[in-house]
């Protein structure tokens, strides 16, 4: 169980590290096009040719040229289009749940599966010991058949 806990913490740490790999200070248009949602198409900007998406791209270009950081551009777009403009919810406040719950759910599922597997392997019946071979080295006889053979032999002897 302790090993499972360690694995889960490790998985969370790896995912967490992967999420924080972008450079906030020098964003690129290509990177930000994946970051924002076009309010008309409800797809990321990189997939949208809607007029509002074109306008948003122009806005982002202007802001990058002006030296704005990614968080400053985030802030400006959220002020006009709401948090829905972000393709991924911010990792703070109530929105943090959107990041934590799937990881927690995954960890719980893995834990439950591991627990079930351990229980299943412990409660599985032990395989029966092989019956002793018969005196002539052939396969052992069925006990009922053996009893009947013994009876017949006894009768034959008397």
């Amino acid at each position, binding site marked *: 169980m302790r090993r499972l806990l360690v694995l889960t913490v490790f998985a969370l740490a790896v995912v967490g590290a992967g999420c924080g790999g972008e450079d906030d200070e020098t964003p690129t248009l290509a990177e930000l096009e994946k970051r924002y949602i076009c*309010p*008309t198409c409800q797809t990321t900007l990189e997939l949208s040719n809607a*007029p*509002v998406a*074109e*306008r948003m791209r122009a*806005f982002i270009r202007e802001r990058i040229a002006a030296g704005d950081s990614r968080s400053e551009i985030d802030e400006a777009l959220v*002020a*006009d*289009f*709401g948090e*829905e*403009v972000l393709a991924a919810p911010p990792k703070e406040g109530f929105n943090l749940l959107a990041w934590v719950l799937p990881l927690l759910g995954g960890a719980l599922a893995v834990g439950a599966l591991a627990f079930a597997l351990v229980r299943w392997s412990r409660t599985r019946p032990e395989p029966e010991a092989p019956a002793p071979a018969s005196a002539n080295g052939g396969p052992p006889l069925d006990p009922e058949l053996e009893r009947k053979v013994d009876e017949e032999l006894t009768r034959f002897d008397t």
Partner: protein
Amino acid sequence: MARRAKLILQAAAVLVVVLLVVLLGWKVTQQEEGRGLSDALERGERPHPPTVVFETLDGDQEIRLSDYRGKAVVLNFWASWCEPCKDEAPMLEETWQRFRDDGLIVLGIDAQDFRTDARRFVERYGLTYPIAFDGNGASLGRFGNTGFPETWFLGRDGRLVGEHIVGPFDREQLEENVRAALDTPVR
């Protein structure tokens, strides 16, 4: 103990599924509400508009359609990047100036747009009628709008009246619907 834990987990799973189904139902109902408005108008009915709270372009006040009870309202959805909206804006301003003393309100709803672009648009066309701002366009689905521009009319009783105009209107069409809205009784 294990059996109790299993029961709790099962109950939690059922609860999650029920919540998801309720959420889906709510979403579908919201979409149907919008689609139904246009159909109801075409059948000659006069449905109530969705209850939506807008904010002003400056973001300092709220606007509810119920605030305009007793007035006829032209509800025009626009965006600064929408080409036909540029032709409509002067006509709307002219109509507002002409009929405002008769009890007409023109309410422009700027959606899926930048505030700065919207302000420039308002300035460029000299718009003096109230403008609401709906940056992410949340209200569009509530009305069943599918593009820009789209125009609705509310009677003095707060119910929809006339046509739901999808796309640009012409002067006659606008005036005809404005008169229909002004002619509705308050109750």
